[in-house]
């Protein structure tokens, strides 16, 4: 069944794959090595290796502007991102389950409404949302992020999970009902384990998007002590003054580590999930 490659074919394949791999990872290597270069080398030459090595970019970058270090920003970001991801997964699953498996009045209209909010550009809703959150007294806290996540305000994930639930055969639900499951235990015992790949991809997306989100965090968070990493990175970028790019590069390197780790650790569940989906025969 599997074609055997001879040594010559294998060599070509590996050379091509390695070349492509290096091409893809080049920007990251450049980013990492640039954190050891002074400003004029970062922009003035295309060499990868720095001529004059600057060692203290990570140290100085971590200190930030003096008042708060990047340690604070990282803790803040985790405080913001983890609840958002967890709440999004729980709430989106429940809502998606409802839309996928139950019949209730106005279902179609509500579903259309939910999908239509997906089309609203952020720029249109930012001021009404801002005023709403201000009236709730939620500004300058992480509530504008976590509470909407708790109430499934991310239609993209609901849509994604609905599609996934629809792909699971109803026969499973029926046999579970015969075995004595109610509608909630069907979800928890039967459907959720099958949903793992969808849940993991939703979780990873939400994690990376929230982690990197700049505009919303900037609008809702005022105090520097509550800044997230995305805000911290751009904190010293002024149009008229030179920034210490090596410090910003160094912090960017650190800032992408959690995203990369999450992706690699969660990767195996994609595969596992896909392998166990569906009924045979």
């Amino acid at each position, binding site marked *: 069944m599997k074609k055997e490659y001879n040594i010559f074919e294998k060599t070509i394949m590996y050379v091509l794959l390695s070349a492509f791999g290096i091409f893809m990872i080049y920007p990251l290597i450049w980013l990492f090595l640039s954190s050891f270069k002074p*400003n*004029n080398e970062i*922009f*003035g*030459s*295309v060499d990868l290796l720095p001529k004059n090595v600057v060692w203290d970019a990570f140290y100085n970058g971590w200190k930030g*502007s*003096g*008042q708060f270090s990047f340690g604070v920003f990282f803790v803040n970001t985790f405080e913001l991102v983890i609840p958002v991801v967890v709440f999004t997964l729980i709430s989106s699953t429940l809502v998606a389950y409802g839309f996928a498996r139950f019949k*209730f*009045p106005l279902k179609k209209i509500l579903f259309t409404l939910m999908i239509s909010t997906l089309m609203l550009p952020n720029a249109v809703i*930012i*001021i009404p949302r*801002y*005023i*709403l959150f*201000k*009236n*709730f*007294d939620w*500004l300058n806290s992480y509530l504008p992020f976590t509470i909407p996540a708790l109430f499934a305000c991310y239609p993209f994930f609901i849509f994604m999970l609905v599609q996934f639930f629809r792909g699971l055969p109803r026969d499973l639900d029926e046999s579970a009902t015969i075995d004595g499951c109610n509608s909630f235990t069907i979800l928890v015992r039967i459907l959720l384990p099958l949903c793992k790949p969808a849940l993991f991809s939703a979780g990873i997306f939400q994690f990376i998007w929230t982690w990197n989100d*700049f*505009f919303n965090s*900037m*609008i809702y968070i*005022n*105090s*520097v002590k509550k800044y997230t990493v995305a*805000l911290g990175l*751009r*904190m*010293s*970028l*002024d*149009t*008229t*003054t*030179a*920034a*210490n790019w090596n410090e910003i590069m160094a912090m960017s390197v650190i800032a992408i580590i959690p995203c990369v780790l999450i992706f690699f650790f969660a990767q195996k569940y994609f595969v596992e999930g896909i392998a166990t989906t569906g009924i045979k025969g």
Partner: protein
Amino acid sequence: MKKPVRLLSMACILVLLGTSFSACGSSSNAPADQSTGQAAASSQAAASEPAKNITMRFAWWGSDARHQATLAAIDAYKQKNPNVTIEGEYQGYDGYQQKLMTQIAGGSAPDLIQFDYIWNQDLAVQGDNFVDFNTKTDVDLTAFPEKVLKEYCTVNGKLIGLPMGTNGFGLDINKKFFEKYGLSVDTEWTWDKFIEEGRKIHAKDKEAYLFSTDPSALPIVVFDPYIRSKTGAYWLNDDYKVTATKEEMIEAFTTIKELFESGTAQPLGESALYNTKLEQMPKFINGQIGSSLEWSGTVGKYKDVLKPENFTVAKPVTVKDGKDQSIAFKPSMLLGVYSKSQDVDEAVKFANWFLNDQDASMILTDSRSIPTSETAKKVLVDANKVDMDIAKVVDFTLKNPAAAPPVALSNAEVFEIEKDVCQKVAYSKITPEQAADELTNRVQAKLDELKAKAK
């Protein structure tokens, strides 16, 4: 079994909808009333009992150096006035304006706001959001040049902000480049002479250019100053009329054309990649660009990449035998006090201290360009605490500052047309004659529209 569930779910939906609507309705009023109540209470308390603790928010954008200097100044103020705590809300320039506009729309802007005078009109549209400094006694307005306050900081008769620093226009020079091609850094350039030398340099070395500019900066760098220098007036006026003649415009456009044809200016195709980020352009860093016309606020970043010993400044390029040798000028940024602040008077007091006080200026130095306040500037100059190149540009400018541009000239749509026409000339898509006609017709049409709207 099924029916009760359906009824229950209906009920739930209704209740949820109901509460969410009523929540919006009631909460929009309640906290506002509460906060105004608190405001009244706290200001009364402050009057009777000076030790009353006050917390204010101060928003600014900037670089690390500015953040650190400002935070240090805030600390110094706290030591003098232990009851006043000021929280800095600082960030980079990206998104600052959007955030400020959103905050003002939501009525929750910081008490002290750093802003750019270019936003004056946009801010004015959103209502009276700034305290009129003319009505406050706690602030020393005599320290600021009256012309600046009147022309750049006053909107509808209200003094909405105080200038924090002065920005002058100058020629930023790579000294090494000038030495290499035998040019004197003290030359007072005219466009003719500039193009003549630029042509020679480019003929010697195909990779070297005497001058570089962003495509989007052509109007402010060449066209506007050319007409002003030539005629002594801007090319349009406050009465929404294009005033420059066709001949004058043709001359200015011909200069743009020659700048690029002679190889004096780097081709726009190259410089466009580094729009407003000349300090990131390899050619500039490696010394193949001789000069650039810039606001003094950018001196720091160019000096940083070129190394201070290779950098100097000179007066901007003018027109030979022009009527006007004045130099463009603007406040680098303004400091305003939010009118909905709970402690307007304390905020005004702080603003006055921040801009005029000796100790404050010694801490802040030139983190916001050379201070506009005469008292602050004198302290810094006496203590030799300012960047000499920035000081030089500002000095040139203050000796002969240009009048403020007409409001219509900073209109975004007018600017867009001007930019478009200038670029067409630079890319040799149209002749200077065609450009003069196109600019006059398109801008006049837009101005008529604006005038009708203004009435």
